[in-house]
């Protein structure tokens, strides 16, 4: 099994952020920000040095928690420091982006990394729809069409025009073509049946984030059966799990940290006003949302979001066992790890990476 380090590039003073999304740019201090990216890149370098196989980047917007709105820019910078690891974009939020532009970015990145690119496609969390004003109801369709268009743009040797449902381009001729032919590895990050089936039907990999092992297994079981029906068997590296991790020298230290975190009642991730979150959800599902029926509470009470969750917590042996469960039950061949937890600073992340390389990686490389 292989390990991937998520280069989140979190703003080092993110603990001071308000409970909100987006985070107002007023919280940005240039000096702190420059230092944060330098620290983040140092973490990637150490991760590669101690044996992580992939370094991944993820598109997220308007927040310093994962501060890579344009992940290929960050990936290009890290790729010049890290010369061995695969560079995984996990991934582009396709409903938000011009697919041809994404194809151009990916083609270029595969060239400057000399064929080390892993491609990832995903729809994004509900708040992401608001970044560029995309109608949440169209996210699924834009994702599906975007994947088709990008793959065609990266593989078609002749200029073509595209008559889509959401995209129309009369000239597409992406340059440079990828180094990896016919196409770099592609991971579709999703939990939805239609997109899982798309990955299976098109012989693409699958990525799942932050779910418990039993929930992920329901998805990978479907994926495996649809792959079989499509006449192929995914390689281990085509099933990727992204999870949050807190690793300590002992289980007790890790548990103490986790209990402290819980006691401090951490803010929800991607915190939004309940009215906005409800309107996004209604738009995504096609249901009605009538603002007039909402009775407003306090400003604080109106904020909703995702509860912080950790996939892997413990000492090295415990974490290795937790990761092995995903391998054994779900067929995961690559675990993509998010180390930058709340209240964990750069120095502690570096310690965790070093500990992971020394104590955990040798174990998971065995299965």
């Amino acid at each position, binding site marked *: 099994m292989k390990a991937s380090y998520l280069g989140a590039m979190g703003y080092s003073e993110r603990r001071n952020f308000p409970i909100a999304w987006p985070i107002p740019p007023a919280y940005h201090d240039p000096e702190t920000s420059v230092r944060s990216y330098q620290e983040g890149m140092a973490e990637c370098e150490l991760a590669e040095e101690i044996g992580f196989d992939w370094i991944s980047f993820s598109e997220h917007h308007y927040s310093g928690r994962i501060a890579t709105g344009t992940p290929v820019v960050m990936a290009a910078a890290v790729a010049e420091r890290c010369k061995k690891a695969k560079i995984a974009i996990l991934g582009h939020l396709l409903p938000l982006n011009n697919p041809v532009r994404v194809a151009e970015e990916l083609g270029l990145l595969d060239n400057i990394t000399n064929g080390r690119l892993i491609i990832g496609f995903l729809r994004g969390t509900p708040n992401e729809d608001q970044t560029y004003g995309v109608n949440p109801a169209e996210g699924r369709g834009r994702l599906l069409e975007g994947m088709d268009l990008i793959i065609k743009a990266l593989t078609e040797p002749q200029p073509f*025009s595209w008559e889509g449902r959401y995209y129309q381009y009369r*000239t597409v001729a992406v340059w440079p073509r990828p180094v990896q032919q016919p196409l770099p590895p592609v991971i579709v990050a999703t939990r939805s049946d239609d997109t899982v089936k798309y990955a299976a039907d098109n012989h693409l990999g699958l990525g799942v984030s932050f779910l418990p092992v039993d929930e992920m297994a329901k998805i990978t079981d479907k994926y495996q059966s649809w792959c079989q029906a499509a006449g192929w068997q995914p390689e281990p590296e085509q099933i990727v799990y992204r999870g949050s991790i807190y690793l300590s020298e002992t289980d007790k230290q890790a548990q103490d940290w986790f209990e402290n975190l819980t006691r401090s009642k951490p803010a929800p991730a991607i915190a939004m006003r309940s009215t906005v979150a409800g309107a996004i959800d209604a738009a995504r599902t096609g249901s009605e949302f009538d603002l007039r029926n909402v009775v407003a509470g306090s400003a604080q009470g109106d904020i909703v979001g995702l509860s912080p969750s950790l996939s892997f917590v413990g000492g090295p042996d415990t974490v290795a066992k937790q990761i092995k469960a995903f391998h054994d039950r779900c067929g995961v061949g690559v675990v993509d790890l998010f180390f930058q937890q709340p209240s964990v600073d750069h120095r502690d992340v570096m310690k965790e990476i070093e500990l992971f390389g020394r104590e955990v990686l040798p174990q998971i490389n065995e299965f």
Partner: protein
Amino acid sequence: MTLAGHQPSGLFKEDFLEVDGFRIRYEEAGQGNQVVLLEGESWGLSKLRDALSERYRVLAIELPGFGKSGTNTISKSLAELAITASKVVERIVEGKFTLMGTSFAANVALWQTLQSPEMVEALILISPTAILPAEILPKTFASANGQKERLRLLLAHPDDLLSAMTVDPDLWSREQELVLRLKGQTHDEVAEARLGEIKCPTLTVFGVNDRSVAPEAARVYAEKIPNSNISLVYDAGHLMEAERPEALIDAVSNYVEHRETFIVGRGSNLINP
């Protein structure tokens, strides 16, 4: 295969010509630039020609052996059938025109252009089956078993459309016999070798999910025809007119209007003037 129940659009005026021993039916509507539409397997679809007739003079010619025309045992080759089509066009069209066809009829249009290049101002090939390179050929239409499987291969979403389509089995058999006899589902090496002779602007349109002809075949036309464009229609199979009519109409009508300059963006993105 033709679908039973296909009726001429009310906009079109029907007429007949005697050519090469055939009584050939054609329909005409509209004014403006001249568009000749060769009709083979009609599929019961008329949205494209109806839309084109709102802006152009459209002449839809029913190829002998298809639709209501009866059995064609006379034509010996695609090239010969194309000569017959040219003779019809010579009698009903003055000057140059845009020539188009779908599937087998696109192959006839290709041959007509090769044989009578002086007549054709622009060529539009919709899901042509003339070029079938073996190395990129998927499961072929020809090898499919039975009408139902063949029909499914023509659609990206057969489950959405099949129930609404009524097949006339006798017509299906008769048309397929002619298509097979004239090698309409066989790679046309002679036509491929002559693609470079086509000097007029040419648009080749394929559905991204065409399972009867790999859309990658489009690149062969692009590589060998000097002034040509490829257009790919997303979420559509061989029968784009059934599944994405608005996209097909938009691409084709833009090409009729602007030819190779159809790549120039003319729509406005201005939100608040």
